[in-house]
């Protein structure tokens, strides 16, 4: 691939990098693994770039590869951090400070989401990105009905985790 392609690709990705950062935010627990996963996603998207025909939106195409990288291709020893205490692991995140009551509530929701499985996080990501169920189902390779059912179960699961967190306080 020539230098122009590289520059064009880097320009596109620089412009739309937040879609990948958002995936990293769900799947990683510190800034190093965030950067690590981001880099792996960039490599995977770049490897697939010759087949990008421009029929789909670049962002749609890139987030699918990004999600697949997080779910299937990326393996970091830092994943073991999931077994440590959640509060400790969250201390490493410098994404934002939580002050108001709403922000504290948000922190609780993020903590609950972080406890979900890789697949559940993928569903949440697409839900938060406002993807419809047809797209969610197609991206994961499941039926639309089952995507809806699973999403409802995840909502209940998040409620339960938050309730448990509240109970543990």
């Amino acid at each position, binding site marked *: 691939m020539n230098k122009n392609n*590289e*520059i064009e690709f*880097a*320009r596109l*990705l*620089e412009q739309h*990098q937040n879609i990948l*950062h*958002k995936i990293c*935010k769900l799947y990683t627990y510190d800034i190093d693994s*965030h950067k690590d996963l*981001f*880099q*792996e996603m*960039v*490599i*995977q*998207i*770049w*490897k*697939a770039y010759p087949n990008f025909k421009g029929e789909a939106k670049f962002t749609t*195409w890139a987030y699918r590869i990004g*999600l*697949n*990288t997080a*779910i*299937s291709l*990326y*393996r*970091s020893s830092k*994943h073991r951090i999931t077994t440590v205490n959640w509060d400790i692991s969250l201390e490493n995140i410098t*994404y*934002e400070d939580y002050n108001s009551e*709403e922000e504290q509530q*948000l922190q609780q*929701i*993020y903590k*609950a*989401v972080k406890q979900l*499985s*890789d*697949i559940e996080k*993928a569903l949440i990501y697409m*839900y*938060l*990105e*406002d993807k419809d169920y047809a797209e969610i189902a*197609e*991206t*994961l*390779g*499941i*039926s639309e009905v*089952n995507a809806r*059912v*699973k999403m409802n179960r995840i*909502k209940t699961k*998040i*409620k339960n985790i*938050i309730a448990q967190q509240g109970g543990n306080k």
Partner: protein
Amino acid sequence: MNELDLLKTHWQKDQDYIKFKKEDILGMLHKSSSSIVKWIFIICCLELLLGILLNVAFPTKHNPNIYFKIKQVLIDIIGYSIPIYFIYKFFTLFRKIKSINNTKLLLENIAAVRNNAELYISYNLLFYTFLMIIQSIEKLVGSNGKYFGDDFLTHGWTYLGILIFGLLTAIIFTSLTILLARFIFKLYYKIIYGFLLKKLNKNYEELVAIEAGE
């Protein structure tokens, strides 16, 4: 407002992320991937190579006896054609792994490459065990195959006894070898692929469970 709606509102407003410049991204393009698929590819290549090396390294004795000549031709045909088939299959399956596929299909395609390598190792185990059986029988019955010729007819019962004894010994010896080899094989797979594919298997099982309505 429920939890996810609150999160969604915040999520869509949130722009507070690290910002990589175009130059940083350009630098990333030339970094080495740490993808699981890359490791599977390397391990599978080593396994394929090992199979070929075994085939090359397996001692072949030139013997004028027609039995040994036919045996050697068969070993050569099987010993080269089957690994070539597996290598072809490996690259065909490997090319199907595309990160743009849906997650379930991607996981299935990765598993297919691994299964191909697993089948290849099983084939090698079977093939070399079979060769060991044949060689042990040959050794017990007589060296250089002289008992496989006309002598066999003239020494009837004695050789038949030795043959049965040899066959039984070979079966016991082979069964033990197969058991040991299977144990080592399982252990190897558990260590190598268990480590690499734990996450993939878990995610695949979850997708299957979603489809099954569990």
